[in-house]
């Protein structure tokens, strides 16, 4: 009985101290994350004015979204995110696999090569792609001097350029989680599969791929979700004919007359979609895990 009282007291003390320890973070998140989001939520239900908002409740923004007026940017963004993720998986998997199977020393060097691009500012990297892909840019010069083409290719300011740069930027986010899963993979399992009659291809699909699912999940989260809200890359290398959600939101605030409620509603819709995606993936992942843990 006495011991119980002590335990309860000790537990209370522990709870209190963990609350105190998390207080700074909680304050930070409340001030700079929760409050701004609340403002966005409130703004989305107000009426637009030329520069600011009128404090008059209006569901007009949501009405327009549900009427399908903004379906195209959403579809474009989803398409971009899906393409980017798929290409990242296809390109990232062999790289991650190769690094995971490399000798320990080489492995670290290769990982550094994957991480090095992060040392340069994103915008600078995107601008170098613009120079590289431009009509009179490095790529076209090279291809012409190699005699492969006679007139320069128009790559800049196309959807292809957007996907290209998106993949370039997000590939490391796919490779790193894939690598950390594949590094833990016991490669004698592949020997065992081959021993039991599976050739290299069958061994890959029945052993390597299922055991890399966790890495693919993690990589997909890290690539798909930011791709959905992509703004910078489409803005810098894309064209104005296909506007992605991120760009539309920005224009609603940037262009006069401004439409804060519309921008807020679009942001929240995007957030909601991402949340739904996360929930679906979480559910799928739980199912995948549960299948392994059921007895």
């Amino acid at each position, binding site marked *: 009985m006495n011991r119980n009282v002590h335990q309860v007291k000790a537990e209370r003390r522990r709870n209190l101290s963990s609350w105190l320890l998390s207080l700074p973070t909680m304050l930070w998140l409340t001030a700079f994350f929760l409050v701004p989001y609340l403002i966005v939520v409130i703004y989305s239900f107000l009426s637009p004015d030329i520069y600011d908002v009128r404090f008059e409740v209006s569901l007009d923004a949501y009405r327009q979204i549900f009427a399908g007026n903004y379906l195209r940017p959403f579809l474009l963004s989803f398409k971009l995110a899906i393409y980017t993720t798929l290409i990242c998986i296809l390109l990232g998997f062999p790289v991650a696999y190769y690094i995971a199977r490399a000798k320990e020393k080489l492995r670290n060097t290769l990982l550094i090569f994957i991480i090095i691009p992060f040392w340069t500012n994103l915008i600078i990297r995107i601008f170098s792609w613009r120079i590289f892909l431009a009509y009179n840019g490095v790529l076209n010069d090279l291809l012409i001097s190699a005699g492969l083409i006679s007139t320069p290719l128009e790559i800049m300011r196309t959807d292809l350029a957007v996907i290209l740069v998106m993949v370039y930027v997000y590939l490391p986010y796919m490779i790193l989680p894939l690598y950390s899963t594949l590094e833990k993979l016991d490669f004698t399992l592949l020997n065992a*599969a081959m*021993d*039991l*009659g599976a050739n290299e291809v069958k061994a890959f699909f029945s052993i390597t791929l299922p055991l890399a699912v966790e890495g693919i999940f993690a990589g997909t989260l890290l690539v798909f979700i930011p791709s959905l809200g992509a703004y910078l890359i489409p803005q810098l290398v894309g064209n104005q004919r296909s506007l992605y959600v991120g760009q539309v939101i920005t224009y609603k605030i940037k262009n006069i007359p401004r439409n804060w409620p519309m921008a807020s509603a679009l942001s929240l819709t995007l957030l909601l979609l991402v949340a739904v995606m996360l929930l679906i993936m979480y559910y799928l992942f739980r199912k995948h895990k549960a299948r392994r843990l059921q007895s």
Partner: protein
Amino acid sequence: MENIILENLSKDFGAFLAVDKVNLEIKSGELFSFLGPSGCGKTTLLRMIAGFEIPSQGKISIGNSEITDLPPYKREVNTIFQNYSLFPHMTVFDNVAFGLRIKKRPKDEIRQRVHEMLTLVKMEDQALKYPDQISGGQKQRIAIARALINKPQVLLLDEPLAALDLKLRQHMLIELMNIHDAVGITFIYVTHDQSEAMSISDTMAVMNQGKIVQSGPPDDIYERPASIFSAYFIGETNLITGEVTAVHEDYIELSCPDGSGKNLEIDSSFHVAPAPGRQITLSLRPEKIAISRNKPRAMDDINMLKGVIEDILYLGTHTQYIVRVGKLKFRVFSQHKRVYFDDKALDWEESVWLFWHDTDTWLIEEIPSESMFIDDPEGASGLQRYVKRGKI
């Protein structure tokens, strides 16, 4: 069912020669084991038979068909891996069914054969569990079932019991023998554990530095080692090197330096005919030597030496005595049998008699070199000291 034939088989990894011109025929249906210290090339040899390593030279055939360059999935050979390598994302059932599913067998056949296999390894009630939910011994059984379901000509076992604890190991050893009897195919077993190899094999090959040092039935190798390595690696032994002083009709006499200037006369039966004056090594197993504080009755075919007990190691089933005879040291095993009425236990520094039958010594036409006892400088009766002083 066909024999496995290894011809002139070699494998090098750069400058390191892992397997060195091995020639061997393994009879069909046999339980054959490779025994050797780590790094002797036994696992590389097994991996070449499985198809995971391509030989640098030589040929592997099963019967008349050569399989040297076939990929693993085209060989009628299956392997039990050291850590079992069960697929962690599949149930026990799916693990066992893997081989048949790859071959696209009909569902009913798969279900039935998996059930047969799980019954063979006594795991029929665990089919829906995942590998991380079963014990080490059970994983072992599943690995066996998963391999045998493919009806291979040969089953390769790479240190299959190394990860199990002692009791389970002994139990699984018997189980493995029973399974071998039940399926009747060739088992090739690789181990560094001599008691495992000796108890399980029909034939075993002792390997050292990529070469097969000796092969034959376990008792043959234990009782009649062909080389100092065989004698020393399998079990424990006393190695005595000396000069042949006389050759009689059915025994020879050997003198060996004991440091006191005087020679020890040791009679031995012989299978080789060494000429007098030749240096020869004699292997004498510790359990063949009797130890007593009373002098035994002198007999023709009994060797007798007087020594002093230097160390006593109580080992439960037996006691090991280290007995100094002049400059030589003998290891002697003595079992604790009360029927001898040897009432008072032997003690340190006590003078004792060592005696053994002369057919229990075995001649080896080889002289130990220093490098043989790197791990055991005191080993083999302190032979090292003679080697160092250049007397042998």
